[in-house]
C-alpha cells in the first residue's frame, strides 16, 4: 500500500483519520477501557519506532507520527502515567529520567484495577528505552498533553528539557521526531507570547540541519522561523530569509503547503500580487484534501484578497463551498462592493468587519482595495457612457470635486484601465470606440497562458506520483504459483466443456 506523507498537525486543531490499521492482530485483552485501547495503540507505535530504528526506514516512523493528531485527543494523565511507569526501568538508572516527566502529570485519582492488564515488563521494556527515540517520543507525548491542558508554564519547561535532550544527539533516525518536537517547542512559546526568544535557537538548529542534510528538520524549521517573523510583522526579515535559503525539495506536502502560504503572504505585502496569488493557490492544492479545514480557510481568505487586488473578481463558486461559506461571508460582501465599484458600500463593509479583518491579518491589504473600487467604477462608467460630464462622474463616484474626477480619469487612462479622451474646455470625457479584440493578439496570449498552466499541472502531478513499495510484490503470487493456477483452471475448463458435451444428447 503506498505510504502517505507523515501526518503533521496544521495550525489549528484538525481531525486526521487513521488511515492505516496496524498490521499485527490486536492482543486478546478485554477492550472496555478507552485507556487500555490508547495504551495498546501507543505500544504499537513504539514497536514501529523501534523497527524504524533497526531497519533505518523512515516510513515506520512516519506511520507512528501520522497518528499523533488522533492520539492527542485520547491522551490523559492516567495513560501517560502508566506509560512512564512501564517503559522506564524502575531501577535507579531510570529514576532520574522518570521523575521530571512524572512531575508534570497529576497524581492518579485512584488505583485502577484494570492496570493489571499492563504489567511492567521490565526486561524488554527496559531495553526499549535505551533507544533515545522512545524517550523523546514519550517526552513529546507529555508535552502535547500539557499544551492541550493549557498548563503553559509546565509546557514551557517541558519543551526546554526536550530541546536539551535533542540538541546534542546526532542520530539520523531521530530527524523526523525532532522536526515534530521543534514545532511543539515553538508552539509552546507562541502561546505564551514569548516567540522572540526562540528565534536564535531556531536559527542555530537550522544551520545544523542544513549541514546534515536533514530535510524534514530544515523544512519545519524554516516554516517555524517564517511563522515567527510574520507573527511580529517583520516582513522585511522574512523576505530576506526566503531569498537566502532554499526550501528542500523532498519535504512533505504539508510542509510545502505551509511554506507556500507564508511565501504568498510575504509577497502580498511587498506588492507582488501575481506571485502571491500563485503561491497561495498552490498552498491550497498541496494541503490535505479532506482535513486541515482551518488552514484552507485562512489561505482562501488571503487568496481572495490578493485576487481582488489584482483586479480580478473571484468566482462565486469559491464562496459557495460548504466548509467555507460562513467564514467567507464578510469577504463575499467585500467582493460585491469592489465588483460594483461602489465606494459607499466599501466603506460600510470596512466599518462593519474591520475588527474581524484586523484579527485575520488581512486589514492592511484590504485598505489598499480602495483604489480598485474607484478603478472599477471608472471602468463601468466609461463602458456605459459614450460621453459624460466630469461633474457627473464625480457625483457617481462620490468624489469631492470635478477636479478630482479629472485627475483620476486621466490617471486611469494612462494606466490603461479605460480607453477615452478628456475634453477640458467642455468638461467631459469621451470614450473611444471598441476595437475588435479578436483581431489583436489577446486571445492567443490568453490561450497560451492557460495551456502552459495545464501542462504545468500535468508535469507536477507526474512528478508527484508514487509507485507501490517493494513489499507489495511479496503478497502477489510468484510466477510458479501462477502457472499452477492457470493449469488448474485449464483443466477444470476442459472438464466442464466435456461435461457439457456429455449432457447434450
Amino acid at each position: 500500500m503506498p505510504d502517505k506523507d507523515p501526518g503533521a498537525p496544521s495550525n489549528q486543531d484538525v481531525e486526521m483519520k487513521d488511515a492505516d490499521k496496524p498490521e499485527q492482530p490486536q492482543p486478546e485483552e478485554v477492550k472496555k477501557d478507552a485507556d487500555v485501547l490508547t495504551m495498546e495503540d501507543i505500544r504499537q507505535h513504539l514497536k514501529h519506532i523501534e523497527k524504524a530504528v533497526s531497519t533505518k526506514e523512515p516510513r515506520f516512523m512516519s506511520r507512528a507520527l501520522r497518528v499523533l493528531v488522533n492520539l492527542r485527543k485520547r491522551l490523559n494523565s492516567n495513560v501517560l502515567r502508566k506509560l512512564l511507569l512501564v517503559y522506564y526501568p524502575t531501577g535507579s538508572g531510570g529514576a532520574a529520567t522518570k521523575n521530571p516527566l512524572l512531575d508534570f502529570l497529576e497524581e492518579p485519582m485512584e488505583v485502577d484495577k484494570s492496570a493489571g492488564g499492563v504489567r511492567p515488563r521490565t526486561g524488554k521494556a527496559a531495553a526499549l528505552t535505551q533507544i533515545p527515540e522512545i524517550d523523546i517520543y514519550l517526552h513529546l507525548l507529555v508535552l502535547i498533553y500539557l499544551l492541550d491542558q493549557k498548563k503553559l508554564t509546565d509546557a514551557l519547561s517541558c519543551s526546554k528539557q526536550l530541546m536539551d535532550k535533542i540538541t546534542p544527539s546526532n542520530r539520523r533516525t531521530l530527524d523526523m521526531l525532532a522536526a515534530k518536537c521543534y514545532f511543539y517547542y515553538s508552539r509552546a512559546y507562541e502561546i505564551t507570547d514569548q516567540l522572540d526568544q526562540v528565534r536564535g535557537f531556531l536559527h542555530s538548529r537550522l544551520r545544523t540541519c542544513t549541514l546534515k542534510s536533514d530535510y524534514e528538520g530544515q523544512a519545519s524549521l524554516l516554516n517555524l522561523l517564517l511563522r515567527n517573523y510574520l507573527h511580529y510583522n517583520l516582513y522585511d526579515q522574512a523576505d530576506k530569509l526566503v531569498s537566502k535559503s532554499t526550501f528542500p525539495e523532498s519535504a512533505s506536502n504539508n510542509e510545502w503547503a505551509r511554506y507556500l502560504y507564508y511565501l504568498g503572504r510575504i509577497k502580498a505585502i511587498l506588492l507582488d500580487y501575481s506571485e502571491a496569488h500563485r503561491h497561495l493557490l498552490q498552498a491550497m492544492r498541496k494541503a490535505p484534501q479532506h482535513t486541515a479545514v482551518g488552514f484552507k480557510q485562512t489561505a482562501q481568505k488571503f487568496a481572495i484578497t490578493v485576487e481582488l487586488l489584482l483586479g480580478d473578481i473571484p468566482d462565486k463558486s469559491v464562496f459557495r463551498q460548504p466548509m467555507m461559506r460562513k467564514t467567507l461571508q464578510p469577504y463575499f460582501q467585500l467582493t460585491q462592493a469592489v465588483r460594483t465599484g461602489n465606494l459607499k458600500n466599501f466603506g460600510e463593509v470596512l466599518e462593519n468587519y474591520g475588527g474581524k479583518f484586523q484579527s485575520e491579518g488581512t486589514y492592511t491589504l484590504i485598505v489598499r482595495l480602495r483604489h480598485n473600487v474607484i478603478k472599477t467604477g471608472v471602468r463601468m462608467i466609461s463602458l456605459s457612457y459614450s460621453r459624460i460630464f466630469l461633474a457627473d462622474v464625480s457625483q457617481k463616484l462620490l468624489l469631492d470635486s470635478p477636479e478630482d474626477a479629472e485627475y483620476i480619469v486621466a490617471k486611469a487612462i494612462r494606466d490603461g484601465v479605460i480607453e477615452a479622451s478628456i475634453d477640458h474646455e467642455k468638461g467631459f470625457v469621451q470614450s473611444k470606440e471598441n476595437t475588435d479584440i479578436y483581431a489583436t493578439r489577446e486571445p492567443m496570449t490568453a490561450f497560451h497562458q492557460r495551456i502552459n498552466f495545464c501542462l504545468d499541472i500535468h508535469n507536477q502531478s507526474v512528478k508527484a506520483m508514487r509507485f507501490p513499495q517493494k513489499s507489495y510484490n511479496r503478497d502477489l503470487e510468484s510466477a510458479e504459483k501462477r502457472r499452477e493456477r492457470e493449469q488448474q483452471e485449464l483443466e477444470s475448463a476442459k472438464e466442464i466443456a466435456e461435461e457439457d458435451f456429455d449432457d447434450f444428447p
Partner: protein
Amino acid sequence: MAAMATAANIGAVNNIYAKLSTEWDKKPPNLDECGRLLNALKVKLTQCPMNFLATNSENDKRNVILARGVLEIGAQWAIETKDADAFERYMAQLKPYYLDYSFDDLEESTYKHQLLGLNLLRLLAQNKLADFHTELELLSTEDIQKNVYIRHPVQIEQYLMEGSYNKVFTARGNIPARSYGFFMEILLKTIRDEIARCIEKAYEKISFHEARRMLFFNQDAVESYKEYVKQRKWVCNAQDDMIHFQREEKVEEVVPAKDLVEQAISYARELEMIV
C-alpha cells in the same frame, strides 16, 4: 583600567552632547557647527558601544537615551541641510531604538512619531512603495489611524494611488511639522512628471494656461513652466494657444511568425512527453 577609559569616554560624550543640544536649540542653529559636533559624536559613540546599546542597568539606560537623542538631532539636522542620504542613515540607526529595544520604562521620545512619519514620506518621495508598505506593517493600526504625523504620509499614499493629485497639492499646506516640507517638495516634482504623462495620454488638446494650472505652476512661475514644456517637447500652436498631442497610429499588425512557431513547438514537445 578599561572601566576608567570608558568612564572618561562617557564623560567626553556627555560634554559634546551638551554642546550640541545648546547649539541645536538656538534659532537659527549654526548648521556647520552642528555638523562638526555630530561627526565627533558619531565616532565617540562607536568607540564605546557596550555602554550605548541594550543592557539593563540604570546607568546604561541613561546612555541609551543619550545615544538616541544624538541620533534624533542628527536626523533632523540632515533634513535642514537637505541631505536625504544622511537622513536615511540616521533613521536606519534610530529604528532599533524605537522598535526593537523593548525597555519597559524607557519613555517614548517626543520625536518618535514625527521621525517615523518623515521616514515614510521619504520612501514615498523616492517611489519605494514596497518599502513603504513594509515599514507601515511595523506600526500599530492605532498609530496609523490616530497619530497625525503618521496619518499624513498614509493619506498622501492613498491620494497617489487614486490619482487625485490636486489633493496632494493642497496637503502641502497641511503638513504636521515644518520638516515635512523638504520631502513634500521632492514629492511634488515626482507627481508633476506623472501628471504630465497623464495629460499627454488623456487629452487631445489642452489650452496653454489650463495645462499650467494643472501642473501646479503658479501665476508668477510662467518662465519655469515654459522650460518644463520645452523639456517635455510639447508643441504649442501659436494661433489658438493650444497644445496638441500626437495620437499614436495603430501599426498594421504583422503575424508574429517566430512567436507562433516557438509556442507551437513547445506544445508539441510537451504533448509528446505524455506517455
